[in-house]
């Protein structure tokens, strides 16, 4: 667990970057610090590995004040990923990944063998190992950055806008990969982003900062979307937060109608819908809503694990379901 205890950062010249921050980042979870630029989120993040020193207050990792620990040793135990990856241009991809294990005294051979495994883990084939960072795309560099941060298997990861510098399609892929990795690894992650959608998608906990370095609200993404603490948070999470909060609602108990109710549903020989988007029980209500809205017939088709259509939802069923749910949990 990472704990901020009444932390203040005032820069020479008097501007306050962080204003009395108290926050706990739970072990094994991803906590996303999010807010507009100049809100102190990056400054706060960089206090965890002592890249920034608080003016007052303490930052603790599992109860130990980071200020009392050796800087370099502390940092070797915290994985660090930044925007544009910050890879070492003079080292191959493999040696970039091997950096921290080598600092920790691992032999070059062992560090390289481990690094190769890590590359695979972040979705890069062995052919990338011998390349230099300049020979990679932005997305590939970012993967190497993540592999390098994971190399010494640190319990904590600090990520500063790790996915901001890549295009939306690549970012989407990196998000999926991140969630998959984090599911396996269960690191304690502190991440900064200015993108509330990213925060909601990746965070177990979202900490929203406002200008002047003050914490506006902390909560799960669902809580923050459903009950913004004030106008600033409501504004920041966006006007379509109602729609977005449906991302957290499962489609599992949504009532479906038999296929026979829809006359001209196009199915292939195996019974899979043709020309329609479809959802499964594991998807969210947001997807179902989206499908029902874009479908000319106003229906969303549900499929089973094999992709075979087993029912349809009409938009008004969806509206009724949401209304019923609201009555149940006011």
């Amino acid at each position, binding site marked *: 667990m990472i704990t901020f205890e009444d932390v203040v950062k005032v820069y020479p010249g008097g501007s306050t970057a962080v204003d009395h921050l108290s926050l706990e980042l739970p072990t094994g979870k991803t906590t996303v610090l999010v807010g507009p630029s100049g809100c102190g989120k990056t400054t706060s993040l960089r206090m965890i590995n002592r890249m920034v020193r608080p003016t007052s207050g303490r930052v603790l990792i599992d109860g130990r004040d980071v200020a009392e620990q050796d800087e370099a040793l502390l940092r070797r135990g915290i994985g660090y990923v*930044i925007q544009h990856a910050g890879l070492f241009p*003079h080292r191959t991809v493999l040696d970039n990944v091997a950096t921290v294990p080598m600092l920790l005294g691992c032999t070059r051979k062992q560090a390289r063998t481990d690094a190769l495994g890590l590359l695979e883990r972040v979705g890069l084939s062995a052919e990338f190992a011998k390349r*230099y960072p300049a020979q990679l795309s932005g997305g590939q560099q970012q993967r190497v950055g993540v592999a390098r941060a994971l190399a010494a298997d640190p319990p904590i990861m600090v990520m500063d806008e790790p996915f901001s510098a890549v295009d939306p399609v690549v970012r989407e892929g990196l998000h999926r990969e991140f969630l998959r990795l984090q599911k396996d690894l269960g690191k304690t992650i502190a991440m900064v982003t200015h993108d509330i959608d990213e925060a909601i998608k990746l965070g177990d906990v979202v900490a929203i900062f406002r200008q002047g370095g003050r914490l506006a609200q902390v909560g799960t993404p669902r809580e923050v979307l459903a009950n913004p603490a004030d106008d600033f948070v409501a504004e920041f999470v966006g006007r379509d937060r109602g729609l977005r909060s449906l991302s957290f609602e499962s489609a599992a108990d949504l009532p479906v109608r038999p296929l026979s109710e829809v006359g001209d549903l196009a199915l292939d020989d195996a019974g899979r819908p043709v020309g329609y988007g479809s959802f499964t029980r594991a998807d969210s209500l947001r997807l179902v809503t989206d499908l029902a809205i874009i479908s000319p017939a106003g229906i969303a088709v549900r499929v089973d694990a094999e992709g075979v259509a087993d029912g349809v939802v009409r938009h008004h069923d969806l509206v009724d379901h949401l209304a019923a749910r609201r009555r149940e949990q006011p």
Partner: protein
Amino acid sequence: MITYLSNNTDVVLAALRQHIVLALLPVLIGFVVALPIGYLGVRFPRVYHPLVNICGVLYSIPSLALFVFLPVILGTKILSPLNIVVALSIYTVALLARTVADGLRSVDELVTQSATAMGYRRFRRLVDVELPVALPVILAGLRAATVANISLVSVGALIGVGGLGQLFTRGFQLFYLEPILVGIILSIALAAVADLAIVLVQRLITPWSRV
């Protein structure tokens, strides 16, 4: 020219050998001295501009003046090769201290920052990350300094120690073109070979800068 060469092989070779030592020893000394000075210009940003100015002034001192005044300051004999070595070392430091500083300053802030965040301590970060990344800039300065030194050594002939430059003075005194030509050609060839050698070393040790 061939006749001249075959009749004076010993003189020419001795001149060439002296030229190489007088030109390259200062490159080595200057490089070693310039590294910490250049680093100071980066470590303490307020030092950078004074450093650049001092280097500029030093480099603008005419070489002949330096050759003549150094014996007064150092207490060496006027004909001592040491004067040439010290003078050229000063020029090399003036050129390379700035280059080292500029090279280190050219290292992307993100790279040094991520090195720090990985857990590098200051000195190891300098040796393992900053200097290697600054190498292309530093080696470009080293090439300039080496070629400049090779041409400057000849001026030393005017005070009696000048490697291949001695062939020039001899040619002028005897109204004899051959040694002058040999001196010029060997001097240019030496500069070209030294430059090429540095380029080859650079290719070898910074393969990443060509991708």
